[in-house]
């Protein structure tokens, strides 16, 4: 990585990481409850196609990635609604086609693209302008999900009931897909598109094991994200490695530790109960 590891870089990285933790904490629980983990991975990888378009037609690759990710998110979501059983195939095709298109366009345009940064993330290359964009997205997400908290809760728990209640489920879903596309681009900067799925799924899955209320699951997920991201950033800073790998390693190891601990606890409890009986 061609980055000077100064304290300024570290501060930018931590501020960016805090904002990304809050955003992915909110979106992560939505993704987990709607079983959209694979879809989020697919959306992340379609970003390469958008970047390729940017390089080929000489406009901002990140803008291309944002547009294509949002369109992919909306497209896959609509298809999922109509043909539930074939979504995984569509995601796979979107995933591969978009990456192939992106690489092809980058090759034709003759640009030297550092893929590693997109694949594994590099929180240390965050610029002040990008931090402002993150802040804008964070405010937007807080206004949307805070403003319609109860509606989203019903929608996530029981979509059919929400529809019967007369809630505009299609509107909630469209907002969700747009935000998913935008958030995914932000997280590519932090953990990279290969690792994004872990950050979306593992922290809310851990939080669900310890929380009784929907609101506390969100808060716990945000807290876990903050811990994973900040520790990951500090380790990456010290070892001068990519931020995505360190963050995801900590996230993944914690998840497996919790799952194993839970399994041992259950086994122990069952054995004690058997002894009592």
């Amino acid at each position, binding site marked *: 990585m061609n980055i000077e590891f100064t304290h300024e870089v570290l501060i930018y990285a931590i501020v960016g990481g805090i904002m990304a933790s809050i955003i992915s904490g909110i979106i992560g629980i939505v993704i987990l409850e709607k079983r959209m983990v694979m879809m989020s991975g697919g959306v992340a990888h379609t970003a390469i196609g958008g970047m390729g378009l940017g390089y080929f037609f000489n406009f901002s690759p990140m803008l291309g990635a944002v547009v294509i990710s949002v369109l992919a998110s909306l497209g896959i979501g609509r298809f999922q609604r109509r043909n539930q059983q074939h979504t995984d195939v569509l995601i796979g095709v979107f995933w591969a086609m978009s990456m192939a298109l992106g690489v092809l366009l980058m090759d034709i345009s003759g640009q030297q693209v550092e893929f590693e940064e997109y694949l594994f993330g590099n929180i240390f290359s965050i610029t002040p302008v990008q931090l402002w964009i993150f802040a804008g997205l964070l405010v937007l997400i807080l206004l949307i999900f805070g*403003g319609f908290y109860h509606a989203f809760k019903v929608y996530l728990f029981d979509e059919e009931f929400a529809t019967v209640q007369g809630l505009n489920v299609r509107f909630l879903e469209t907002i969700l897909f747009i935000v998913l596309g935008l958030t995914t681009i932000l997280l590519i900067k932090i953990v990279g598109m290969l690792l994004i799925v872990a950050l979306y799924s593992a922290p809310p899955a851990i939080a669900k094991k310890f929380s009784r209320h929907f609101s506390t699951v969100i808060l716990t997920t945000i807290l876990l994200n903050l811990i994973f991201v900040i520790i990951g950033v500090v380790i990456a800073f010290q070892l001068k490695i990519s931020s995505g790998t360190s963050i995801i390693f900590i996230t993944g190891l914690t998840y497996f530790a919790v799952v194993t601990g839970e399994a041992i606890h259950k086994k122990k409890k069952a054995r004690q109960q058997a002894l009592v009986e």
Partner: protein
Amino acid sequence: MEKALRLSEVTINYHTQIAVQNVSLTVDQGEFLVITGPNGGGKSSLIKAILSLIPVTKGTIEILGKQQSEVKGKIGYVPQQTHFDHSFPITVRDAILMGRLPSKIGWFYRYSQTDHEVVNDLLEQMNIAGLAKRQLNELSGGQKQKVLIARALSSKPEVLILDEPTASLDVKAKAQIYDILKTLSQSMTIVMISHDEQLIARYASTIVFLNKEILYKGTELPHSPFNLGFGLSSMEALHEH
């Protein structure tokens, strides 16, 4: 008085298959109607079409004399228990409160004192007040069903629609649910899918036997299909009859 429900020549296609064909049915207000019949006979499709969850291919559906979109708040719905994520982190009180959410929800909407009072009354009515703070996934099947009925009732509906509310419950829990529904039927119309032959006979005011089309509508259980079970031969026998 307007009919609670009026279906006119309703046909529903599910993908390329016909789920329901040419069904006409009227339900009076205050009726306790049970739809029964074989699996794959179109019962859930018909209910979902009444609730506007799936479109009808042909025909019309009126609820309380109006189009479906005009009576959203007047219908209560109790889905099958298998339908939602049981690990969702939600308490009994929060689940019932969901029924109080208005369709036109404002930004940063908060439940009112009245909403909480309605929920308190329903918790008492369903005899689950002691479970208010428990998580939904900690409850037994019968308790969960009471919560779902309370949620449906919290919007004060005029028509209550239930999709197999007693499926996978034990006999005692089933009887409790039917007792609750019998009491409710004195103040609202109930349309329910069920396979509980004996309980249907005891509680329902009208029974409809559906296998893509209505094969029977009456106040008592017909002998042939029920005594023979819901097999194809009994359907055909009844149809021919």
